[in-house]
């Protein structure tokens, strides 16, 4: 049975009518028009649909929309709070961590989840944690470099 729920996405509250069998990804893209989150494998194996749920990396294609109630959902659209690009986005552009761009939103959201963790990220840690995000252009080296360079200033502040 369909139900009206409230979802908190990028700091805004959205009221949406959803069926229990709708995934968060379907609601984000098809109902709310937030197309930044990509539909890749749709089976939780490629990471393209990564969003942040309370700051952690979740695969929105294998999460029910109903399960998002009461949680802080963040998508790529909500990453930069100013007109400028977010430091992670800047780093991806500057280092060249983008080829076709399809995997980029998922990559950046996973990277943000890694930066949200208390420990300073290491190159090895970034590689392990981002291994669930597939890039078919296979530009992994520059993606890891971009995350490392975005992590540096944060590390220096500590």
């Amino acid at each position: 049975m369909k139900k009206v729920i409230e979802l908190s996405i990028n700091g805004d509250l959205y009221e949406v009518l959803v069926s229990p069998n709708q995934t968060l990804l379907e609601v984000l893209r098809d109902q709310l028009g937030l197309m930044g989150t990509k539909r890749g494998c749709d089976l939780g194996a490629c990471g393209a649909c990564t969003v942040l749920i309370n700051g952690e990396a979740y695969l929105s294609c294998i999460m029910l929309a109903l399960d998002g109630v009461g949680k802080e959902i963040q998508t790529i659209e909500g990453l930069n709070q100013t007109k400028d690009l977010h430091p992670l986005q800047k780093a991806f552009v500057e280092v060249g961590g983008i080829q076709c761009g399809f995997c980029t939103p998922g990559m950046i959201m996973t990277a943000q989840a890694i930066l949200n963790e208390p420990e300073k990220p290491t190159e090895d840690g970034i590689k392990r944690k981002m291994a669930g995000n597939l890039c078919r252009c296979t530009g992994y080296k520059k993606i890891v470099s971009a995350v490392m360079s975005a992590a540096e200033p944060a590390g220096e502040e500590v």
Partner: protein
Amino acid sequence: MRLPKFSYFEPVSLEEAVSLLSQGGSAKILAGGTDLLVNMKHKIEVPSALVNIKKIEGLDYIRTHQGAVHIGVLTTLKKISQDPFLQEKIPALTQAAASVGSYHHQCMGTLGGNICQQNRCKFYNQSEWWRSTNGPCLKVGGKVCHVVAKQENCFSSYCGDVAPALLALESRVVVQTKNGTKDMALENLFSGKGLAPLALQSGELLKEIVIPEAVLNGRSSYAKFANRESIDFPIVGMALWLSPEKKEYRAAFTAVDRRPLRATSVENLLNQKDLTEDLIEEAGSLAAKEAQPVKTSLYSSAFKKKMMGILLRRALKETERGTQS
């Protein structure tokens, strides 16, 4: 890929969850969803209802009580893998949790969900379209098993990473039932049946895992061979626990049978003995006889058996080096 239709419930207590699960039909428990929802997208599991237990408070904890470690079933794999106390005392568990799927799966996936994951098989974990070319296998309502053509048996493999670690650590599980809770050895949670891998009655669900104090002073590790290190289920996985002082050994394998297996003959061979080259070699050869894997993945039975020996020998040697240093 749309999920099939189902009714949805969010109980706020274990009692309410038990009552919802006991109402008949084919209701399933939803926790992290990383296994169940993928299977539902493939239409290999089509439950009438999903009972989302994540709104039940007080099931997400790691604590010690009278020396034993108690972990709530809703504790995420990420939390377990990053817990400093567990990393120091029982690395087999943290290594196993860190080897599950990708980082995302570890953020979403729960301990209970990982233990209770569905068995796997190359004929089962496929899309509806793929399966239609072969006709349904026994596990999705067909009449024959495509791996081993015996009508009454499903040979799907249990492929969880965390269960072998917990088996080697001699863990117990607390199960919520209609009449309160019951405590059982983790080993008895697994039925050994491919069609229904868990020995739970309808309406029963896991509440917590208890790891006994006695294993906290040993050494342990989890090793996994998989296609890709980053995201795959194990082709063969093995957990080892040993106490150099007491000369006690526990080993458990995953992905080689319909349930995770304790390697009892290997344990019997090793117990009360010092590790020597010859003994490690002998244990490795014996490991291959602990299971009769069938070809549920792209890897042959012979390959899996060989890998069982290799993983065990490697783990024993690494532990021996640790002992000597």
